[in-house]
């Protein structure tokens, strides 16, 4: 999947670049080593703090590793896939996995819908409303996950929150029920992640020649039709990027769930994989089980990444 075999127009467009470099720098051993010299710091850091921990994660997941082993009280024993067997036999794991997938899917769909709709809206209004919406969105974007979580909790607080007063819900607790707790977290996640989609898609729409849109409007196309038949296809590369980014971010939600549902909700009803792994490892000292969950997450996201790469390649994008 690495070597691009087909010669695409983009590759040809690059040829002068290659010639330029070879002309300006004598083809000596020094110059062929230069890129590696530039890459060295990045590779050292990534190797030591990303690749090695991933390897370690896989390793830990294959051992029996609890508090006793950490403190050196008992020797570590190799378990093979024992931890995975235990995990897959655990009903809670499957529940958490299902909840994670559904929750992430709901977050992604809502984020994209809100982000794209508002991006289109931004193109329909004049400077002042646009600036207002842009600034509000930037504010939401910039808000740290942890402060966003506490603020939304406060807004929906049963006793002192304004939302219950406005909706006349009395002291209804949003974090008590499983679905309403997930819903509350979803609102916060969408609130802080739609701005990225909105800003990116808006930048993309602005890059679409206005003649195209005017022609569509003159032909009597409705807003929805223009979006579906003109904008969306033209923005496809951008939409792919924001979708994948959203999938990855929302699949890994940690802070919001941890803070808003108090570490996973009543009896773990609001656990997602990330929080589940953390709880197994650091609360129950089941480091190897936590690592196994981490490996599962890693594999799922790797799958998403492969889909992403395929989409990129199909679009004929060069790397």
């Amino acid at each position: 999947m690495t070597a691009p075999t087909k010669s695409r127009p983009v590759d040809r467009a690059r040829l002068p670049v290659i010639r330029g470099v070879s002309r300006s720098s004598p083809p000596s051993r020094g110059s062929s080593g230069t890129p590696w010299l530039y890459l060295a710091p990045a590779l050292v850091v990534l190797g030591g703090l990303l690749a090695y921990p991933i390897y370690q994660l896989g390793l830990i997941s294959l051992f029996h590793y609890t508090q006793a082993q950490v403190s050196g009280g008992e020797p570590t024993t190799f378990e093979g896939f024992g931890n995975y067997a235990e995990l897959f036999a655990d009903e809670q794991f499957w529940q958490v996995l299902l909840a994670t997938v559904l929750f992430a899917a709901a977050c992604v769909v809502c984020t994209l819908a809100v982000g794209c709709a508002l991006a289109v809206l931004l193109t329909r209004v004049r400077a002042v409303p646009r600036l207002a919406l842009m600034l509000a969105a930037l504010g939401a974007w910039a808000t740290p996950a942890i402060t966003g979580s506490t603020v939304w909790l406060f807004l929906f607080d049963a006793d002192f929150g304004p939302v219950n007063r406005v909706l006349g819900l009395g002291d209804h607790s949003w974090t008590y029920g499983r679905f309403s707790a997930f819903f509350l977290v979803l609102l916060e996640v969408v609130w802080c992640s739609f701005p990225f989609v909105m800003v990116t898609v808006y930048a993309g729409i602005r890059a679409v020649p206005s003649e195209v849109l005017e022609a569509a409007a003159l032909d009597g196309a409705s807003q929805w039709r223009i979006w579906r038949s003109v904008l969306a296809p033209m923005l496809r590369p951008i939409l792919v990027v924001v979708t994948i980014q959203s999938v990855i971010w929302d699949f890994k939600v940690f802070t919001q769930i941890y803070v808003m549902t108090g570490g996973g909700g009543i009896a773990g009803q609001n656990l997602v994989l990330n929080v589940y792994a953390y709880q197994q490892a650091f609360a129950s000292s089941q480091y190897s089980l936590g690592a196994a969950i981490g490996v599962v997450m890693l594999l799922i996201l790797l799958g998403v990444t492969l889909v992403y790469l395929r989409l990129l390649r199909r679009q004929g994008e060069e790397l």
Partner: protein
Amino acid sequence: MTLVGQDRKPRVNLVRRFVRRPGRLAAETAALLIAAVVAFPLYWMVLSAFKPAGEIESSAPRPWTLAPTLDSFRRVFGQQEFGRYFLNSLVVAVAVVVASALIAFLAATAVTRFRFRMRTTLLIMFLVAQMVPVEALTIPLFFLMRDFGQLNTLWSLILPHIAFSLPFAIWMLRGFVKAVPEALEEAAYIDGASRARFLWQILFPLVLPGLVATSVFSFISTWNDFLFAKSFIISDISQSTLPMALLVFYKPDEPDWGGVMAASTVMTIPVLVFFVLVQRRLVSGLGGAVKD
């Protein structure tokens, strides 16, 4: 459409435009309403930070206050070593931003300005590295930091965050480095500039706007980090960062909402300032990274 009203007085013109474009009026009203809804949580946060305790714990909260007070902020800053936490957060974030920007700049230059074997493989690896769930690596990183005796030090936060912000930074900077014309490079060499000189005195200043846009992401992910701060700084509280200080006020049973909101405000403001400063570059940077 504006041509129609050109011979009239401007005021009439304005009115006519609204009447003639009910769609736009609706769109602008919607935009303003949505802006208000989106901004409301932040407004409520700042408002609650300034409200006196009695008004916060009221069953009929009002969206304004007539008696703003700094009590909550006093509690926050009076908390043991809050300034220290703030400073720690700042040190970690700045260290990560500077280090990852420099390292990513070099790496992005390598993958855009040179052809070499494994280049595509490397790029794909950088892309894949972006997808790695950082949180899943908490466990091995915890042991790594323990083995190097770095638990409870700021290094345990700085180093992993550099690693995690690098892949995205490299990926994003590619577009900016690519945008610098090759001709400039050739001209520099013809004029006798060395590689290093070209790199730092010509390329670096030209890519700086891109670096700024990129650093927003490293800054935010570092500043906002909660998991590592919680997992790696376990016993030495003097090395804690802001999120931990915020949680002091947030006790699940009886949260001190005033304190939480004041601490949240203090924590959000630096990010907001940073964001507003680089806002324009961020938008164009994203466009560049995505279109590229």
